[in-house]
């Protein structure tokens, strides 16, 4: 009976190690080749770390191989069979101790995430989670109520439009005030929060430094020149229907489609009359989702 348990635990170890090797290799593959609009089924970590997944998969194959002979020699590990010789088989004692029915519980637990991943679809985070995290807005320094920045002379000239990547750099310190009036061309997801007034929304992107656990949402408010409504397919997710509700909870909505917003940075009033940085006079068009919906600030070739 004990011998059977030893064998089952031994086989379980090897199977589990090799399952994780396959799983990590798959994670590497899907991170390297994300499906359009999704960060890949398992691509939920910064692609800069994908080599760690591949290296781990390769190492786990070696580890699984090293555990195989131990399993085959399982018979020699039975207590009291006289196979231990001095210190040479000292490590096999540990093997005996570990190969208990209790280890099967560990193995089952460790297998659970792989099973869970088979039931997990979609990508990124849902709008509900994003709303819980809150949007980190890009601001102009010294932005106060009742005041608006003066477009600088520099801004009047022809300048390349600002992208999310450039704006992200100023998430913490605030965008330089001379950017008032600068053209902007950003791609992001349509999002409406409780501060949005009529015909206002937030263009958001999810930024991941390491993995989805540290995901934060960055955003710039926008006010289009013509009222914009998301496509019918996504309308159910949008706040358009509840936008005039006075209930803040009813106004926080789920993510809607991918949009490209072009306009100029300016300070406008939000729903509560507070001055905020907006992409004013914006033209909005729905666009297909980018190859990778997440942004990775530490990655040089980030698809901003």
């Amino acid at each position: 009976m004990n011998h059977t348990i030893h064998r089952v635990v031994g086989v379980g170890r090897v199977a589990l190690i090799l399952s994780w090797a396959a799983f990590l290799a798959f994670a590497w593959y899907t991170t390297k080749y994300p499906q359009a609009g999704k960060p890949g089924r398992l691509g939920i970590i910064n692609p800069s770390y994908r080599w760690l997944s591949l290296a781990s998969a390769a190492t786990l194959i070696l580890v699984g191989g090293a555990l195989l002979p131990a399993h085959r020699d399982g018979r020699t590990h039975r207590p009291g069979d006289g196979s231990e010789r001095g210190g040479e088989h000292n490590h096999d004692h540990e093997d005996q101790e570990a190969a208990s029915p209790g280890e099967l519980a560990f193995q089952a637990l460790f297998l659970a995430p792989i099973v869970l991943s088979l039931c997990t679809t979609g990508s990124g985070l849902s709008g509900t989670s994003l709303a819980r995290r809150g949007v980190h807005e890009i601001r102009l320094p010294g932005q106060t109520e009742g005041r608006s920045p003066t477009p600088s002379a520099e801004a009047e000239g022809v300048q390349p439009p600002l992208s999310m990547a450039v704006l992200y750099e100023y998430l913490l310190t605030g965008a330089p005030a001379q950017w008032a009036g600068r053209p902007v061309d950003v791609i992001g997801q349509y999002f409406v929060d409780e501060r949005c007034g009529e015909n206002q929304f937030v263009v958001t992107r999810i930024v991941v430094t390491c993995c989805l656990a540290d995901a934060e949402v960055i955003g710039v408010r926008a006010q289009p020149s013509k009222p914009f409504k998301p496509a019918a397919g996504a309308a159910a997710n949008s706040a358009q229907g509840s936008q005039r509700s006075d209930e803040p909870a009813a106004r926080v909505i789920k993510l809607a489609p991918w949009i490209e917003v072009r306009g100029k940075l300016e300070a406008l009033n939000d729903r509560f009359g507070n001055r905020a940085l907006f992409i004013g006079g914006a033209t909005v068009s729905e666009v297909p989702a980018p190859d990778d919906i997440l942004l990775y600030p530490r990655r040089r070739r980030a698809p901003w």
Partner: protein
Amino acid sequence: MELFGDFSRVLLSILFEALPFVLLGSLVSGIMEVFLPSEVLARILPKNRFLATLSGAMAGLALPMCECGVIPVMRRLIRKGTPLNVALAYMLAAPVVNPIVILSTMVAFRSMRPLTVTGLRIGLGLVIAMITSAVVTVFAGKDAHTIELKAPTAARPSWRKGSREALGHAGRDFIEIGAFLVIGAAISAALNVLVERKIVVQFAGQNVMATVTMMGMALVLNLCSEADAFVAWSFRDFSISSRLAFLVLGPILDMKLIAMYTRVFRRRTILILCACSVVLVFTATMLLSNLWPELSRPSPLTDAARQAQQQPSAQELRP
């Protein structure tokens, strides 16, 4: 259902991020088990207790590990007869006092006193690790852990056989620690998805509450010490001192670490470790913010960043 999907993805992402480091730690642990004789460790450690603890705390510079990878290594160190205070000091300090973390903290805080933040993080991490390890050693006593000490072996295995044995040990460690990582990561993912950050931000203005909140966030978010500086940076409404509390406590204590500690320490030891580290981190950061008021304000910028914000008249705001 939507939140369950988020929970699954966050859980998987934490595992993908942490498992390579657990595997690395398991490999180092396996190699140490087979190729590092116990007497070598005993020989290289200083006899003086303080110096031994200090050398344990500084060992992360030579053997850099994040908090997930350090646990199997520490377990093996204890099994090899390393004194508890030294192994603990290594376990608590290595995730902070290591070159990768130092670099990532400097990069993340490049716009706000990178040297100060990084220096304080290392200094506090080192001191708190040493004090905590001393307190745990004194109060938890000989019965602090559940690891059986390994008897010294006379025979040295051949390179080929030794490598196979080391990989075997690594595999067993990987499964054992990994299973506990799954428990911790699941709790962490649930909290990560459910905790509303807006509620958290409202405490940013009060120094004591901000510090407590950021310590709570460190417990809940379970971030790798190599990436947590970037997240700390993003809590721009919070003071530097409260963010330091986040940066110092996170690598010592979070949900996944507590789950993994149960595989090494007895419950009493874990309680002492948690209580001691929490009290020390809170006291140290509060003290710092009182002695150095600038740290109790959000985001003191570097001179360059400050200059960038001081705009010439053409860019002034108009009524």
